[in-house]
């Protein structure tokens, strides 16, 4: 796959509305750097280092090498024939990020950020994790580069995702249980920010999603954009044309922005970001800030949030730990406002149903996060003519979720 060209990642221009963020990290009114003063110098340094590195072809060449020989990229673009026949509409095509080393798209980002940590001379990395996929991807790359790795994980999520906790430990990472707040992903992020403020001299913080203070949203997007660049090229090779629609799940939004970004200029390609609808948007028990939240400020950026009328962050509800987050990346907030991407939601029930039918019809067990995209994508395909192409990002595999689903079935594994 081709490397990112420097002009694709440096600065916004009037001619190209999608080349943001601006110098202070804004996508329209969203993004920015809203962190405590202790961390400002660290994020400014990171921005400087990343901007320099992003301009160097050898940096991208090293990442591409790792993506090819360590991660196993390119990930296939797979035509799901039985699924397509079952829904009877557009061709359903899966971008198989679940086949990456570690089983999800998260490694695309940790490879890039760990390389920055190494370049900056930081011997220790920290990460937050919800479902554990980003924690695993961080522990993986830390093991490979010989870096110390501490992963913050909500105590509630540790219970839900014990297999991933053990994987991280096997690779030498320390998993630190977060007991504060709602004991989920947002609290793990708070705790990681506290650690970073305390150990800022020797520690690099690998944020796992396209959110947080600038430059993280831009950087994570750039590292994840390999998904969309490959999908574009593969679609041209397979179908001699671009897809009609792209579908991806959105928690923080890194796999979605990675798929969408290289297609933003292609006005004929429609895009759907699928949030976690939980028990249903109307119940208030969900994790869908773009569908049912409002703009506010959390974890370093201005974006859509699940916040109550008093400005407190609300507890979120989703069957998938990886989508159980009250915010979303600022570029998604902006893409929503300008109408370029449609943001929708799939409920727990719909996602579980998709989890089961993808397993049975295609022999692919999806992550519960990705199952949200499958659920909406199949519904969309069913409404479209047969000559259309819908690409769904299968962002991760579901091995980590079998305990959760078995539990719902009343089976103890």
């Amino acid at each position, binding site marked *: 796959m081709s490397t990112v060209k420097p002009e694709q990642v440096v600065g916004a221009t009037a001619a190209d509305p999608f080349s943001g963020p601006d110098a*202070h990290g804004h996508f329209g009114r969203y993004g*920015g*750097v*809203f*962190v*405590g*003063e*202790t*961390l*400002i*110098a*660290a994020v*400014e340094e990171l921005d400087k280092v990343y901007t320099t590195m992003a301009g160097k072809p050898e940096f991208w060449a090293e990442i591409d090498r790792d993506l090819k020989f360590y991660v196993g990229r390119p990930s296939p673009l797979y035509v799901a024939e039985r699924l397509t026949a079952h829904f009877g509409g557009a061709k359903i095509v899966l971008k198989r990020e679940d086949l990456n080393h570690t089983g999800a798209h998260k490694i695309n980002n940790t490879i890039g950020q760990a390389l920055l940590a190494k370049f900056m001379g930081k011997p220790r990395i920290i990460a937050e994790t919800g479902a554990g996929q980003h924690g695993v991807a961080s522990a993986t790359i830390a093991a490979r580069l010989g870096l110390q790795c501490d992963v913050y994980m909500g105590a509630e999520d540790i219970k839900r995702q014990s297999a991933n906790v053990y994987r991280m430990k096997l690779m030498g990472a320390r998993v630190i249980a977060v007991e*504060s*707040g709602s004991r989920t992903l*947002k*609290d793990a*992020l*708070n705790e990681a*920010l*506290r650690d970073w*403020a*305390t*150990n*800022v*001299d020797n520690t690099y913080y690998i944020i796992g999603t396209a959110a947080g203070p600038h430059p993280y949203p831009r950087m994570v997007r750039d590292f994840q954009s390999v998904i969309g660049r490959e999908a574009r090229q593969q679609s041209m090779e397979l179908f001699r044309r671009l897809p009609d629609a792209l579908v991806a799940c959105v928690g923080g939004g890194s796999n979605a922005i990675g798929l969408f970004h290289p297609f933003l200029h292609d006005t004929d390609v429609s895009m759907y970001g699928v949030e976690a609808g939980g028990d249903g948007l109307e119940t208030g028990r969900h994790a869908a800030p773009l569908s049912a939240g*409002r*703009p*506010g*400020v*959390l*974890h*370093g950026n*201005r974006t859509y*949030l699940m*916040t109550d*009328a*008093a*400005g*407190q*962050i609300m507890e979120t509800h989703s069957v998938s730990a990886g989508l159980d987050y009250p915010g979303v990346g600022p570029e998604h907030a902006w893409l929503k406002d300008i109408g370029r991407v449609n943001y929708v939601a799939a409920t727990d029930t719909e996602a579980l149903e998709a989890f089961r039918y993808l397993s049975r019809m295609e022999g692919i067990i999806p992550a519960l996060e990705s199952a949200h995209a499958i659920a909406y994508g199949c519904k969309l395909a069913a409404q479209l003519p047969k000559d259309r192409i819908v690409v769904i990002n299968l962002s991760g595999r579901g091995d980590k979720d079998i305990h959760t689903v078995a539990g719902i079935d009343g089976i103890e594994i």
Partner: protein
Amino acid sequence: MSRISQTMAALRAAKRKVLIPYLVAGDPDKGTTLALMHALVAAGADIIELGIPFSDPSSDGTVIQLGAERALREGTTLHDVMDIVRQFRAHDATTPIVLMGYLNPIEIMGYEAFASAAQAVGADGVLIVDMPAYECAELFDAVRPRGLDTVFLVAPTTTQSRLASICASSTGYLYYVSLKGVTGAAITDKGDIKSKIEHLRTMTDLPVVVGFGIKDAASAVDMASISDGVIVGSALVDAISRLHRGGVATPDDLAATVAVIASIRSAIENIK
């Protein structure tokens, strides 16, 4: 001249150090916060930083996190915080109040509504932990015309180029963060703080007050002797955690809770 500037000028003229306690509004309940504020003034507080509780206080250590959780369990909102200030002001016309917190509750209320409420109840300044000065243009438009001071943090990691912009955006005083870390951690490098503050003196006439990590008379004397005074948060909030929620705190309870402030007051009284 703002109430904060008057207070600072009077202290400077008397060659006394400023003592600023921090407590979370609504911890353990609204009535007790109000009683504690008056007790703090009696114990020697010159200014009070009143914390706006937030669900995700990512710059705070465990003690203040728990304080915020207690306040939120009581249902304390930003409107309640304003109400506490209003009640305090009815009986104390001189002690300045700085509203300190995270941006989201203020953003959701709206800058104009926030600023006009703060002015109406008699608050004097605002310190937003997670809002750097260059994001503040709209906020300044709302608070400055109403005479509210804008206090900013300076950290050990703050670069020279940022120092200039922070000094330019700050009024009232500068809050110097003594350590790399969160509230309630331990100060490790006194020499570095001294040289950083001396450098700050060459850039601004604003009083420089040191916070984070001041937990007793000894650490307060250490920091006050190289600055204009100290901010004490976690040590006080820790004492507040021992008060019972809902019950009426007796004068003895209140005095015991603010004892750490009283002892710091007397310890820093003789620093010249």
